[in-house]
Structures are given as C-alpha cells and as structure tokens.
C-alpha cells in the first residue's frame, strides 16, 4: 500500500470539521504544513493531532484586487505551536489586528475546491 499524502490526511480532517497538524517526538515540536518526514531531524515519526482551533493573529493584510472586494489574509499562530496562513472572517478585513484572539472554522468544499481552514474572532476575547 502506498502511503497517504499528508495533504489527503489534512483534508480528511477538515472534512470532519477538524484542524489537523503533526507533532514530531524527534523535534519535540508541532510541524505545519504537514509533511512526510520531520524537518531538521528527517525522522518519519510525525504523529497527527487535532488542534483545539484557537490562536492569535500574528500578521494581517487587506488585499485589494483590481476586481472584487478587498479581503483579509492573515498569519495565525495556533495555540499548539504552529503558524499558518488563513483569513479572519465575520469582521471587516480592515478590523483584523495583530494579537486578536481567533478560533478556527471550516470553509466547506465548493465544487473541485477542497475545504480549508478560516478563523473568526473569539467573542469577548
């Protein structure tokens, strides 16, 4: 049996409403994006884990396309110790701030596009 691709496993978690990442005992840290072997050590020891889905905005921008509405792009530091690109929804893109507490939700699959993770502000944070 050939190995599943890391992306296939990641998307399968998203389809269940889960934000998955990997943990490497050999590096002692979270690994993201998902890989076949751990960066640095090269060990094939990566264990899949499911994040609690909470994090902080590390950096944010508003992209102004030539056509269409401006939208947010952000880097999120997820509590389990990894960083990912995403966007913050449910508020105006200009209102997203560094340090904002956010939580994950799944942007559902549309047509050929698989589901992907987005974030929304944590109420009262």
């Amino acid at each position: 049996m050939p190995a599943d691709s890391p992306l296939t496993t990641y998307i399968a978690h998203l389809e269940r409403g889960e934000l998955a990442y990997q943990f490497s005992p050999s590096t002692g840290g979270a690994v993201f994006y998902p890989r076949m072997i751990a960066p640095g050590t090269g060990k094939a020891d990566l264990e899949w884990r499911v994040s609690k889905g909470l994090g902080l905005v590390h950096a944010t921008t508003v992209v102004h396309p030539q056509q269409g509405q401006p939208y947010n792009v952000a880097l999120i530091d997820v509590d389990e110790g990894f960083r990912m690109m995403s966007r913050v929804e449910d508020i105006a893109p200009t209102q997203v701030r560094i340090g904002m507490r956010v939580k994950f939700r799944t942007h559902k699959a549309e047509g050929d596009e698989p589901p992907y993770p987005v974030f929304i502000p944590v109420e009262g944070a």
Partner: protein
Amino acid sequence: MVRGSVAIIGAAESDIGAVAALMSPIDLMAQGIQRALHDAGLSLADVDGVFSATSQARTSVMSLVEYLGLPNAYTDSTIVGGSSFEIHVAHAQAALEAGLCSVAVIAYGSTQRTVGRRGASPREYNPYETPFRPFLPATAYAMAANRHMFEFGTTREQLAEVAVAAREWALLNPVAWEKKPLSIADVLNARPISDPLTVRDCCLITDGGGAIVMTTAERARAMGAKAVYVLGCGQSITHATISSMPHLTHTGAIQSGAQAYRMAGCRRPISMCWRCMTRSPSIRSCFWKILAFARKAKADGSCPAAISDPKAGCR
C-alpha cells in the same frame, strides 16, 4: 572558497524598460552576454561556463547554451528568486576555483512588462496558501511590514521613504524607467495593493536583462582587466513561503551577510552591507534589506531611508 580568487571583469545590461516586440528572455540574455563580453574584452569562444535564471523558462540554461552553441559549457540554473544571481556568483566562484570552467557568464532576461505579470511568473499552487488568495509577493512583504510596524513602531511614512529614496537613485540613472521624483504623499495615496503597501511601494514591472563575466583572479590580472574581486559569499534560505518564515522581521540576510563577511575577513558587516545593498533601485529589495537591518538602524536612532538617500553621501 577563497577571498578574491575570482573577479567580475565585464558587465552590461540588455535593452531594458519596454523592449522590442517579440523579444524573448533568452534573446535578452544573449544580448546582455554579448555586451558584457565586449566590456570584458573577450568573445563567446572564451566562455566555458554559463549560469542563468528567469521565471519565464523552466530550463533556461539549456535554452541558453543551445542558443549560444556552447554544448560543453559548465552550467547552473539555480533559481531562488531575486537572489539567484548572487548565488550564481558563488557557484561560479566554486566552479572557477575547481577548474570546471575558466570564463563564466551569468545572465538574466525578462519580458514581464510585455507579457504581463501572470505570463511572466505564474504562481505555483500551494494548498496551504493559495485558497486565501495572497497577492504574492506583495502580500508577503505587506505582512512583514505589518509586523515591523507592530514590533518597532515603524510608521507608514518611514516605509514610504524607502520608495522615495529608491526613486532618488533612479533619477541618477539615465536608463531608469521613471523620470520624475516621488513624494511620500504620492506613495501613500497610490492605489492600495496589500495593506499597508501601495503600488508605489512595489517593484516596477519592466522588461530587462543583463549579464556579467567572471574569471579567475589570475587570468583577470594577466588580461590587465578592470576587475571587481569577489571577497565573500553567503547563503541562507530560511523559507519559501511567508507562513514558514521563522521571524517576519529577521531575514536570512543576517546569516548570509555574516558568512560573506567571515569569508572576506571583514568586520562591521552591518554598515558595509547598507552601503553596498541599498544601491539597488528595486523598492522591494530595498524594503527587504531594510527589514534585515532595521534593528540596527533603530538602535542608531537613524531612519532607514536616510541611510539609502543618495544625497546623504552614502554611495
């Protein structure tokens, strides 16, 4: 590698700005090579090492040696973005020291203005970034700028000073694309691209190319060539995607600069880097370099852009 073992003995630009219709990136490389060899007092028959990169040809060095008719040349087409050519210099130095070639040309060509941004460098699909539609590379720099403003209190006006200083340099260059001064207000009021950056913070999209010629220090001296010796090289690739950049306000230039100065046997890399690196009229690369060195600039209480201002006497 050894400090000063090789030298750059020729350099030239191809046609730049908006080139003639139907010119290809390889045409521009060849034009740059011909001019650079003329500058060096050599001919194509002397060349036995060919190095090239462009976003418009997947196997540019194959195309280039075919075009030049140099089937036995030592070749390398490492592509690591804008610093590909500095790395080519290092790789050419290694090849020259090892005797794998004796005269190397390093070439670039792009018709990105003619064919458009998407035609020149289509983005690769990245399942962990592409769904969020970052406008790359501007969005990556924008998020680094956002962090820089947050961590150091850098203002939007200070960021704009980088573009203004780059324009000041451009006005000294008769073949520069833009001919008029740029003000901070012009930058701030320009069309927004990816906040906080506007179109005036970003690189111009122009056609262009060029080449340099390298040989051993021994041969350069024997030729009596005007030579620029390679004193030190360094390389650090911290990330390919912005979400994997270890620290958004610390670039790999900190490590690569230290390596280069170690090889050169120099101290005080920061101030010397400023002098050599901020000569580039490329706004984006200036900005990136400022990110690498702004901690130092801030510690000095000096504005980064003031250091790169041609009128400040730092040429």
